[in-house]
């Protein structure tokens, strides 16, 4: 039997539930990424002997990891029970893994920043800084795993590309923040991260949309994705061409900071329309089934095939 062109549905009602996360989670994706990237940048700057750059990156990271738990707890249905997250560790739950990554990264960042600002215990500072950097990278990408581990088609089917996009925006925004805060003479590393990360996220999103095909349609319902591409592209160009001049570095940095925010927001927002339309859920599954049945029939018909 030939399947109908439009998949059947029950009065057009969604098959899966829409994500119930509020704006705080979309904002956290940004603050967590910025913090994670800044932890990496702080460790790199310290090795370079650029202590001012390292301190400002540490403080940026500290701001990020301080705001993040507040956002996450605010979004809970029962905020006073947030500590229940700390009673288990489950690799099947990226949210559980992420809770521990954020706790660890936040703790080490706090120690490193405190030692640095107070000018005490430089070895403890350096150790904590490296530990924070080691956790900063997964802090930037686990949120992509969190989205991919759902039934929402636009997230689930982008499990490979989403973490790369998130890594890109994390490094880009951390680099951009550092460019804005520091003298251009000290910002070569930050510029490379800002421009490279911004371009990587633009390319990553493009590849992701290509591979998602029809499932990527929710990305074009709202202007966030387009705005992110324009801002990231413009920001990267400004950074590469004029980043050695303070004014242009600030402009390029601001564009990339905004581009990263829009990028993560567009990915966060795409989940709702993707979950709401039953066709996005049903069509690929139906296709998979027909494909499977087709294979089996072909095998049965083939001489000497499995019967």
């Amino acid at each position, binding site marked *: 039997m030939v399947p109908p062109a439009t*998949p*059947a*549905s*029950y*009065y057009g*009602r*969604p*098959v899966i*539930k829409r*994500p*119930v996360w509020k704006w705080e989670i979309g904002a956290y994706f940004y603050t967590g990424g910025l913090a994670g990237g800044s932890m*990496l940048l702080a460790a*790199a700057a310290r090795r*370079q*002997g*650029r202590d001012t750059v390292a301190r400002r990156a540490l403080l940026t990271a500290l701001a990020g990891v301080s705001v993040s738990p507040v956002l996450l707890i605010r*979004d*809970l*249905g*029962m*905020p006073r*029970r947030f500590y*229940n*997250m700390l009673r288990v560790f489950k*690799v*099947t*739950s*990226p*949210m*559980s893994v992420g*809770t521990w990554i954020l706790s660890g990264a936040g703790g080490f960042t706090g120690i490193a920043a405190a030692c640095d600002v107070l000018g005490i215990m430089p070895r403890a500072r350096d150790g904590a800084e490296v530990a924070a950097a080691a956790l900063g*990278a*997964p802090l*930037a*990408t*686990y949120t*992509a795993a969190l989205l*991919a*581990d*759902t*039934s929402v088609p636009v997230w*689930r089917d982008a499990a490979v590309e*989403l*973490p790369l996009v998130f*890594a890109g925006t*994390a*490094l880009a925004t951390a680099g951009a923040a550092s460019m804005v805060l520091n003298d251009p003479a*000290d*910002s*070569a*590393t*930050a510029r490379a*991260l800002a421009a490279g990360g911004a371009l990587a996220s633009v390319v990553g999103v493009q590849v992701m949309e290509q591979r998602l095909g029809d499932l990527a349609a929710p990305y074009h319902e709202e202007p966030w994705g387009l705005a992110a591409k324009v801002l990231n592209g413009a920001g990267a160009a400004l950074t590469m061409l004029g980043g050695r001049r303070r004014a242009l570095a600030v402009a390029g940095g601001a564009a990339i900071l905004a581009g990263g925010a829009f990028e993560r927001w567009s990915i966060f927002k795409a*989940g709702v329309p993707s979950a709401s339309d*039953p066709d996005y859920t*049903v069509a690929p*599954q*139906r296709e*998979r*089934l027909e494909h499977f049945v087709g294979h089996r029939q072909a095998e049965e018909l083939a001489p000497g095939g499995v019967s």
Partner: protein
Amino acid sequence: MTTVTIPTIISHDIDTRSHDADGTPRQMGFFTDTSICIGCKACEVACKESNQVPDDGLHWTGESYDNTSAIGCNSWRHVAFIEQTKPVQVPDEQGSGALRWLMASDVCKHCSNAACLDVCPTGALTRTEFGTVVVQEDVCNGCGYCVPACPFGVLDKREEDGRVWKCTLCYDRLKDDMEPACAQACPTKSIQFGELKQLRVIADERVRRLQSRGEEQAQLYLSDSTDGVGGGHAFFLLLDRPEVFGLPPDPVVTTRGLKTIWTSAGGAALTAVAAVALAYLRGRA
């Protein structure tokens, strides 16, 4: 006096006790045979009564007799009504074009590989000794992760108290060897409760009988432990494709892709470290 013989649809005695004689819990479940559902919604009402599920208002949808619309935090059973212009399997005086009315009572599938349970970061979602999946309401903190994780759209957050709620397969009643409220209330035995093993045998027999009578589309849904969710402790007999009832045709537990998910996230994290190392070389003083 004329004797009327009612054809028996349920020819089996199903043992509804949830424990063996020695007290060992058994793997229990629902077999919902939608071919004999009459759309009375007794299951919806019994569930609400027994589990004290809050009222969520009455909304006239105009969608056949369905004013519940979907499974949700306050509707743990949902009877779907589907009107089709398809030839019915009974003698039809008006000839062709008769209306076929499908009714089906939907419920949490209590998947053997449950996405909600896997992604829950607090351990609030657990598997019971009967193989069913329940939310512990005193642990759930309303993070909402299970909501988009469920491939069937079962888990739902109740805004009034911030937690997620769903069918417990009457965990409290099972502990006392009692049948779940919906199954007990069902007047046609469309909802059958019993040991999963026995239910699967009954279901196989039933679907074969329907198919041999010309119901070509009759199919079992989630009765196979090799499917994408490892089979459901609640499974169904449907007279049309699953999507007609609002069910996903080939659901797969989200965590089946866990290896890809973590490899990608880990790979991206390492890429980020490598990128920073490269940028570090560029900016050395």
